[in-house]
């Protein structure tokens, strides 16, 4: 058996987390550099994975399989398809920027004692999250996936509750109470989802007798394992609920604005751009593969919920007074698009959804991080506290605008490609749904431009008059992201080619064909 590449990719950040946590309190900067180094090394490994992966090869590649818990047939099984590779690459790509952006977020305000080391903890936790996310993208054993899907919550909980945003939200003074509320809310929501999923996982074991995704999927395919309709639907709902909470889908979304609002900008990016992707990814990989029939059965409801998320999220984004909460609601709207694409059950829709996960990660990261820089300068999250920033900090304003344009998916930037694919894919099967979803793009323009106008344009507010422009470190964070947005917007081919075969497999899992265009249908 060859070198366990996937294990290494997941293990490296874990090692990094331990190493970073072990750095003595005094050597704070050393810890930062160590974390950055490990994240970059992980990125390198992810690149290797992407190179070693052959899109036209068999479905799961670089597989590893070891017996783990024999009594329950739990195996340590890893393997990636195109979608997994793309998302692993995204994760590994974003973490260095997150670390770099959060460079000073965890500096202790006053050194309480020599043994008090928040900085080490902060970066160690981030790396831990990365490790867990990556392995859950790799796991092809349901139980293994479940464990890390849940374990992710622990470091996230501490990241949200322990390292809050020092900027006041205006909503009320005691930020720490707000923060712990947000953290607990996050934890509870996801735990409830996770427990329901656990029940479903056990149920799956009872029905199928093992946890291996591939075996079960094959058994489903060749009919050797047939579930009773109701059993399948119940199991599907169990899985889907957990993923819908993670994603998040309306009406299970309310934890996201609190979490993103209270956490520091980099952590917020970690939540929405990395961790939440596990939810949508899992819908694509587990729900559709394991329960094709139930997925088709549930499609109408899910489509409606996704539509509600799109419009509702956008409308609430318009109504927000807090920059970060606004971005959070925008993300809810975008997740609506992703889920729409997944369950439209067309290859355009699903490729679009996968592409959307990647692009949304990058664009939200760009927008949110710049917003974080802005907030850290003024010390306030309220839109009303800004104005005329464009005059004093043109570069900041420019990058902010580009991030915003990406969010409203302007053609030429990456998100447009994915959003249009999702829309076309949906429209091809459900025209009405597609048209309603299209309203989302107008609303997106509304909240983005309103945000930009209120913060960046107009007469310069005295509080922002002395605001410095982006520093080199911050530019180093934003510039690559923006470049990536443009490149993927103009030439998304590499990603699409990575994704297409996997999507083809999924389509065959659910036994769906793309609807034919009328002209060909006529012939």
């Amino acid at each position, binding site marked *: 058996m060859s070198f366990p590449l996937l294990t290494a990719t997941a293990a490296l950040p874990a090692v990094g987390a331990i190493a970073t946590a072990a750095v003595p309190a005094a050597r704070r900067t050393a810890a930062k550099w160590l974390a950055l180094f490990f994240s970059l090394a992980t990125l390198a490994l992810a690149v290797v994975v992407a190179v070693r992966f052959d899109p036209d090869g068999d479905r799961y590649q670089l597989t590893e399989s070891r017996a783990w818990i024999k009594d329950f047939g739990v195996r340590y099984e890893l393997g990636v398809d195109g979608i997994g590779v793309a998302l692993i690459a995204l994760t590994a790509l974003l973490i260095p920027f997150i670390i770099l952006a959060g460079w000073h977020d965890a500096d202790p305000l006053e050194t309480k004692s020599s043994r008090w080391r928040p900085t080490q903890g902060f970066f160690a936790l981030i790396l831990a999250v990365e490790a867990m996310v990556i392995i859950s993208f790799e796991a092809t054993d349901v139980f293994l996936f479940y464990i890390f899907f849940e374990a992710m919550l622990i470091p996230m909980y501490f990241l949200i509750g322990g390292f809050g945003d020092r900027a006041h939200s205006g909503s009320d003074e005691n930020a720490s109470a707000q923060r712990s509320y947000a953290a607990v809310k996050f934890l509870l929501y996801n735990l409830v989802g996770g427990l329901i999923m656990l029940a479903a996982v056990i149920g799956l074991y009872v029905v199928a007798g093992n946890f291996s995704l591939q075996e079960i999927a094959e058994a489903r395919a060749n009919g050797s394992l047939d579930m009773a309709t109701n059993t399948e639907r119940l199991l599907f709902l169990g899985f889907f609920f957990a993923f819908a909470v993670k994603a998040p889908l309306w009406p299970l979304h309310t934890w996201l604005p609190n979490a993103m609002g209270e956490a520091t900008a980099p952590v917020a990016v970690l939540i929405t751009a990395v961790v939440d992707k596990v939810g949508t990814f899992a819908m694509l990989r587990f729900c559709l593969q394991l329960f094709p029939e139930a997925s088709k059965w549930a499609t109408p409801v899910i489509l409606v919920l996704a539509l509600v998320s799109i419009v509702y999220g956008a409308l609430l984004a318009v109504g927000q007074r807090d920059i970060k909460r606004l971005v959070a609601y925008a993300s809810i709207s975008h997740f609506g698009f992703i889920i729409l694409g997944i369950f439209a059950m067309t290859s355009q829709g699903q490729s679009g959804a996968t592409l959307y996960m990647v692009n949304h990660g990058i664009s939200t990261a760009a927008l949110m991080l710049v917003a974080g820089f802005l907030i850290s300068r003024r010390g306030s999250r309220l839109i009303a506290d800004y104005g005329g920033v464009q005059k004093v900090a043109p570069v900041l304003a420019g990058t902010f605008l580009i991030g915003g344009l990406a969010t409203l998916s302007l053609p030429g930037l990456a998100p447009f490609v994915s959003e249009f694919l999702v829309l076309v894919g949906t429209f091809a099967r459900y025209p009405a749904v597609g048209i309603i979803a*299209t309203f989302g793009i107008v609303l997106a323009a509304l909240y983005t431009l309103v945000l930009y106008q209120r913060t960046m344009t107009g007469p310069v507010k005295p509080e922002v008059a002395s605001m410095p422009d982006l520093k080199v470190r911050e530019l180093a964070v934003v510039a690559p992201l923006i470049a990536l947005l443009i490149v993927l917007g103009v030439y998304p081919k590499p990603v699409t080619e990575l994704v297409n075969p996997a999507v083809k497999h999924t389509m065959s899992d659910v036994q769906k064909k793309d609807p034919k265009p009328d002209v060909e249908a006529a012939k």
Partner: protein
Amino acid sequence: MDTENLIALLVAAPLLGAAVLLCGGRRLDRVGHWIGTALAAVSFVIGLVLFTDMLGKGAEDRSLHQHLFSWIPVEGFQADVAFQLDQLSVTFVLLISGVGTLIHLYSIGYMEHDERRRRFFGYLNLFLAAMLLLVLADNYLLLYVGWEGVGLASYLLIGFWQHKPSAATAAKKAFLVNRVGDMGLSIAIMLMFTTFGTFAFEPVLEATGETSEGKLTAIGLMLLLAACGKSAQVPLQSWLGDAMEGPTPVSALIHAATMVTAGVYLIVRSGEIFNGAPDAQLAVTVVGAVTLLFGAIVGCAKDDIKKALAGSTMSQIGYMILAAGLGPIGYVFAIMHLVTHGFFKAGLFLGAGSVMHGMNDEVDMRKYGGLRKYMPVTFVTFGLGYLAIIGFPGLSGFFSKDKIIEAAFAKGGTEGWILGSVALLGAAITAYYMTRVMLLTFFGEKRWQPDAEGNAPHPHESPKSMTIPMILLAFGSVFAGGFFSVGDRFMHWLEPVTHHDHGDSPLSAATVTGATMVVLVIGVTLAWLQYGRRPVPVVAPRGSLLTRAARRDLLQDDFNHVVLVRGGEHLTRSLVYVDHTLVDGVVNGTAASVGGLSGRLRKLQNGYARSYAVSMFGGAAVLIAATLLMRAV
């Protein structure tokens, strides 16, 4: 080398300029504007090369294609980055890059005192690139990219003076209204995809015969929606007036000559679809006719020179849309009027800009007057543009507009009559408001006073860099029309793309021309009676109900405000409330109830042995009861 490989350069040159100027930083401030202008000129030159090369070929094989790379390859979905250069697009290319270059030149002088001039030129280049991409794309999706690209450029340029809240708001408004139109375009593209399985021009336009008329109508209406957004046609016209917040060169280039005509291009380009869908065509003509009058009426009431011109733009584009709606009869004339309008309207705007430049950026025409002595060049060029637009015999506007009116009558039937007479009426009103502008600005006695700081404007002629473009454009507006229509050159040139056919006009060309002349004279006389003969009050009189409505853009903004803005605000606010109380409240409520219950249970554990004993004893009792019941049963 092979000429079609040049096509990409048309787009690349200004794009490069935009990238360099926007990323270049301050060190480029001193040369930036020259770089921008040069690159615009480059693409104009390339356009000329391609044009001459095209002239050398036969009518049929003039269309060139360049396939760069496959953009979005997904199962059953092919989107390529590929260009198509045919007679139609080359016409646009020349117009855009030509007028664009002139306006770059003009801006060098106009923006001289602005410290952000480099960025201004960057935006201008960005606009050129997007606009060229729009007209060069060989599929609707790439066109969509250009379509939104010009939207972005106009957003940036309208809001160029961002410190003015009015400018920022206007920019946002323009983008949002355009977004509505873009929605139409994207839905149209989806429809094409589901109908034809592709959205490249050629296969779609060839396959129109194979699908139902209903589908075509749907697609057509969606395209019309897009055109309305971009070309400021009713009901999406509200943004154009505010867009005048941008610097005048922007108004000249984007909001008069090029971008706003993109809608016309879209409709003419998709002619096959509209030919297959009469209902959609009817809708187009109706929109055109309504906007024609709407814009003209608004133009009559405005005292702000740029807004007056904006109204006129609206109405002129109404003419073009009307013509485009007439189908093969009108396509050619739509494009022709588009080109000539590009010349004279750009010229007029530049003239207005020159006037403002000399008058401390005063825009109220009632504070002008008698400027012809102070700025002769501006006066002459502006005057020529004026004659052209009202359709003075022999000048560009005469030929193109006259043809459109003919074609309108040629549509035949009552529709023909209605449309024709509307067009005629429009011509009269055009004559009226343009004469009004002319008189208010250049004739009569001077009406300007010192402003608050007491420094009276001392009008002066603008620098060469501004006058030269104006002169060139004046030439265009004088001769273009004649040049095109001598021997129907233009018609034959476009025929392979738009397939012209002469309708059967109930009226002879001479009659129509005569009628046009008559209404022209009427309009001019009315204006002279009102503004030429007696002195003009500096403060506008209250005016009739119509006038007051027209000053407020016929209440469209008020409607939008009340219905959309207010309603939207209420909706969002209530939704925020609902999200916080209802959706969130349900969850928090359950949590709270569980907590309360556990608290109450906790009270039972009071630690008194006796109360534990009670429960124990009670339990025993219950057990006995249970056993007894069991035995009883």
